[in-house]
């Protein structure tokens, strides 16, 4: 009987294997099952931005009433593009809906990782859409130049506008007492008077961090000076005389009239400067503008008004809408498309407008009581002129190259025109390597 109780290699291996199998089985069976969703699950990925506050506070509860179970996952702006692109491309299926920044649409479109929402039943031809906004949802673009490989492709609706954000002017009404300044010269001249009177510390504030932040701040100045970015063959032409004049004005005059540390300013610092009462005027998206009447978020509640961006030649702003795309790997694809159909309906858009967010349907701008003073001004800006950034999948790199050179010129306080020449050469070289010509 002795041998039967002996510990042998065989028994150890058998026992070990048995134990491993048993543990695996128990662990698998014992895993807590995900709770049954309270409704139609939709996992939304978004970057943290004040422009989405009305959606989070007022529309998500409404969606729940409609039977949607919304999971809202937020990340910092600087990491979302790469995170979502990796998710979409690897088919990881972590999200049902991305709330993209509109310049990212071409990258996702070229990689063919988003669902065809037109085929899903969303009508891109509805006349109620703001035309320039729904255009941004198509890849390849319906209008304008197309990158190589997509010249003959049929435009497909891969994204739908979600929040109609665009740049407008926010200004101090106790400094600019005649209403919104019409030109950049007015902004500076009246702003200086405000500084002299001790009402503000700086006439303007903007973002100076290289890359997306500085390009976002410079772009409306560039457009207002009459600049164009690319020609129809994707040759950079932003270093035209108009472009150079705008860059020189931006890194020279505007810097001299902004906080001394503006080179390192991003949206949080520029927001603090305008909401804290230090700056006289700012071109900004809705994120901080929506806080202008809330005494808990600004020291100058009641002193901030909105207007169309100043002009040199024309008053054109940069569009920067939140735009929704459904990844092909979305685990709850049907729910997301159903949610989008409900969300972009004229009724829900009216609710969005009432909640204080900029809608994407024209009818919602006309409601009796929009939830924020910014909304009618946004419509004025749309009518005055608002342009999207160029529709290329390589915009992130172009913006990076340009942003670095602009940032260097901003540090120096001069040489904006030369910075554009350098950036134009770098962009041309890069796009040549990428096979654009």
């Amino acid at each position, binding site marked *: 009987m002795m041998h039967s109780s002996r510990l042998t290699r065989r028994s150890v*291996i058998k026992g070990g294997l048995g134990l491993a199998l048993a543990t695996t089985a128990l662990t698998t069976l014992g895993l807590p099952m995900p709770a049954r969703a309270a409704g139609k699950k939709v996992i939304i990925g978004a970057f943290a931005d004040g422009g989405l506050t009305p959606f989070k506070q007022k529309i998500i509860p409404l969606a729940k009433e409609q039977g949607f179970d919304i999971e809202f996952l937020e990340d910092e702006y600087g990491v979302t593009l790469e995170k979502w692109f990796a998710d979409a491309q690897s088919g990881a299926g972590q999200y049902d809906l991305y709330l993209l920044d509109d310049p990212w649409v071409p990258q996702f479109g070229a*990689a063919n990782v988003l669902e065809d929402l037109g085929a899903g039943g969303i009508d891109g031809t509805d006349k109620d859409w703001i035309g320039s906004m729904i255009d941004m949802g198509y890849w390849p673009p319906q209008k304008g130049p197309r990158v190589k490989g997509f010249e003959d492709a049929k435009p497909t609706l891969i994204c739908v506008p979600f929040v109609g954000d665009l740049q407008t002017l926010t200004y101090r009404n106790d400094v600019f007492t005649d209403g919104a300044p019409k030109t950049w010269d007015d902004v500076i001249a009246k702003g200086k008077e405000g500084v002299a009177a001790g009402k503000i510390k700086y006439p303007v504030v903007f973002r100076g*961090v290289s890359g997306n932040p500085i390009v976002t701040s410079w772009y409306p100045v560039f457009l207002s000076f009459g600049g164009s970015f690319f020609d129809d063959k994707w040759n950079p032409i932003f270093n035209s005389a108009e472009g150079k004049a705008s860059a020189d004005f931006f890194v020279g005059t505007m810097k001299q009239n902004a906080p001394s540390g503006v080179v*390192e300013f991003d949206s949080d610092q520029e927001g*603090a400067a305008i909401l804290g009462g230090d700056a006289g005027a700012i071109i900004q998206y809705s994120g901080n503008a929506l806080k202008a009447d809330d005494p808990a978020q600004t020291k100058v509640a009641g002193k901030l008004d909105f207007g169309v961006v100043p002009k040199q030649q024309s008053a054109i702003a940069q569009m920067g809408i939140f735009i929704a795309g459904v990844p092909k790997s979305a685990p709850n694809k049907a729910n997301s498309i159903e949610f989008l159909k409900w969300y972009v309906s004229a009724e829900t858009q009216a609710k969005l407008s009432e909640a204080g967010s900029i809608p994407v349907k024209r009818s919602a701008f006309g409601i009796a009581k929009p939830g924020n003073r910014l909304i009618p001004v946004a419509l004025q800006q749309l009518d005055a002129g608002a342009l999207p950034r160029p529709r290329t*999948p390589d915009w992130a*790199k172009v913006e990076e190259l340009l942003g670095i050179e602009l940032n260097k010129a901003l*540090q120096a306080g001069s040489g904006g025109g030369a910075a554009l020449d350098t950036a134009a050469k770098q962009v041309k070289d890069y796009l040549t390597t990428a*096979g654009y010509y």
Partner: protein
Amino acid sequence: MQRAARARKYRLQGAGLDLALPYLMLAPGLTIVLGVLVYPLWDGLRASTRAYRYGSPVADVGFQNYVHLWSDGQFLNSLWVTVKFVALSVSFEAVLGFALALFCLREFQGIRLLRTVLIIPMVITPVVVAIVFRLIYASDAGMLTALSEAMGGGEAQILGNPLNAFIGLVVLDVWEWTPLMFLILLAGLQSLPHEPFEAARVDGAGAWRVFADLTFPMMRPVLAVAIVLRTIDAFGTFDQVFVLTRGGPGEATRLVSIYGYDTAFKFQQTGYAAALFVTIGLVVLALAFSAIRLLRRVDAS
């Protein structure tokens, strides 16, 4: 006959098991190594020889990505910034770490608490360290600005000035990683034999002579290992820069890790980024081998 055959079978099985057992034992570890080390390395090497468009491979380009690196001004700049950053940071950390280790070698009241306090920066998450330093450096609401204004000065311009931002990054790294040097060197000092030091004391050698003729030469291998380890680690610095400056202003603090990250994930040039990281890996490997060879030569002489 039947019993004999059964016995032979068992023996054969036993012998087979003897033969297979080491491999069976090795299999789980080997699978993990293949899965998490060898395959990714192979995949990275393969990616580095391909051109990518919109996140997908479109062509085999051989060593073109590697060749292109050396004419890419942005890469060369980031490499230069990285070399400066590593050289400065590791030098300061080695000197400070050694000095602190020598100081903390002595036994006095409160020394245990002091040793514990000194290693705190090292155990804080790098992202948190970067956020704290951002709050110190910010020109509009930072601690340095508050200090400067309290003394009648203006706003402290750290992150908006290329040189200051670079120095600020080095200071952050020195603050965070000197404790690692300190810890390694203190362990080294504590393991040195007592006899030579006692003999030197009996012979009347001064503190400097003891340090120059005994402590430093005996500590050289430990110091070299600490410097090599820290150098390799510093080449991979990412989190702090990502949070503190994102490589700016301009390109003043753009280390190769940041440039590589942007290239791979933001600009979707996966193949080019793979070539960049393979190149940096080889550079670091070459540095490590050189340091070890140098150490051996010094020991031999």
